[in-house]
């Protein structure tokens, strides 16, 4: 029997079909850092039917799908699976929210959101795949979103 590199989980959330090389950024967006108490497995460049992919599994925690939609910024084809007793009970394809707050830094160095003002960065979604977002403050449009995750 072929041994799985990442074993199935009993309960929790599986984020699948992440763009190869983006798993760490996904953890960053979800604020899953070194101090997390959950069991987290990360697979990078895992072989799949449609080429390589990254995969993240968070055990015993069902992440909020709205929160997970932010992943679409760096991995628009990612899918979310909620697992209960080894069964997929909910499957969800990430979809970018109409407004993205506090995740991406504006690419315009003279945008007021890059100054020491008491505001979070704020973007309006222009296009989903590849993601294109527009700064609410300076209105600059950016496509290189992955590079500017805060």
């Amino acid at each position, binding site marked *: 029997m072929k041994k799985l590199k990442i074993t199935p989980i009993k309960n929790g959330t599986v984020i699948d079909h992440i763009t190869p090389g983006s798993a760490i950024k996904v953890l960053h967006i979800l604020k899953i850092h070194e101090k997390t108490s959950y069991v987290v497995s990360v697979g990078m460049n895992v072989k799949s039917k449609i080429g390589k992919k990254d995969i993240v599994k968070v055990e015993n925690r069902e992440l909020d799908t709205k929160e997970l939609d932010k992943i679409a910024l760096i991995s628009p084809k990612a899918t979310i699976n909620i697992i209960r007793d080894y069964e997929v009970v909910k499957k969800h394809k990430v979809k970018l929210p109409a407004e993205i707050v506090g995740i991406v830094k504006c690419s315009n160095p003279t945008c007021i959101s890059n100054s020491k*003002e008491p*505001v979070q960065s704020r973007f309006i979604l222009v296009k989903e795949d590849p993601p294109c977002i527009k700064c609410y*403050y300076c*209105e600059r449009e950016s496509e290189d979103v992955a590079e500017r995750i805060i």
Partner: protein
Amino acid sequence: MDFLNKDVISIKDLSKPEILSIVNVAKKMVPYAKGVKHTNVLNKNILSTLFFEPSTRTRLSFESAMNRLGGRVIGFAEPSSTSQKKGESLADTIRMADSYGDIIVIRHPQEGAARLSAEFAESPVINAGDGAGHHPTQCLLDLFTIITEKKKIKGDKIVLLGDLKYGRTVHSLAYALSLFGANLVFVSPENLKMPKEVINECKKLGVEPSNTTNLERAIKDADVLYVTRIQKERFPDAEEYNQVVGTYKVDLNLLKHAKEDLIIMHPLPRVVEIDPAVDRTPHALYFKQAFNGVPVRMALLYLILGGKKL
């Protein structure tokens, strides 16, 4: 149409009927702006002018507009005399100004500053220029000038000339002129072309602007020539500026190719792009255009502050 307490951050905050409504009120304001008629409709209001960047026309015309309406003005003309110098955030400065007056006019070197100000102020905020971003009242006075001089915009050939890359005025204007169905021609040095985002916005509004570097050809059949200064302060490096300054010059020779009723506009200040000899021709409209800033800003203050009937 309800303008009461409305923020005006970008020309895009205004619909075409709203723009026309402002233009119509501005027409009624002209005799008051000239001091021929007098009014005190805003005598209970205070305007705060927060100018973090130098300005001559915009600041003075806002102050004149408020004074002509019987209101009062407080504010500063450069940031070195304010708490910003001590490291105060813009948000805090705005909160303070908000409590001292009824309406805020702000010019700031950073893009998005006016939008941020509107978030922190309860009073209405008018953007008087945010870096390379928007300058909606300049755009309104430009539209007012074209509409009053040419009676219409739809189908008119309007040439925008100069720094189309960094010039905030031309970005807003290209959008607004597209809203009114103008026939747009962009003339600029190769490295100062109109950004593609602006061109796409024009296209979305059904206007297909043409781009050229040939001013002589573009000026033939033109109804309006809108000239802009190559702005040294917006260039990331001096070398790039030196390469393009003086590329175009509007002079009497060039005007031989123009229609008799061509009007030449410029947001001012001009440096070398229009020969002073042009000032004496009937084409030159830039000083009248600068005056138009007063009735247009009067109309805006009057509408936003809900002034009594004139």
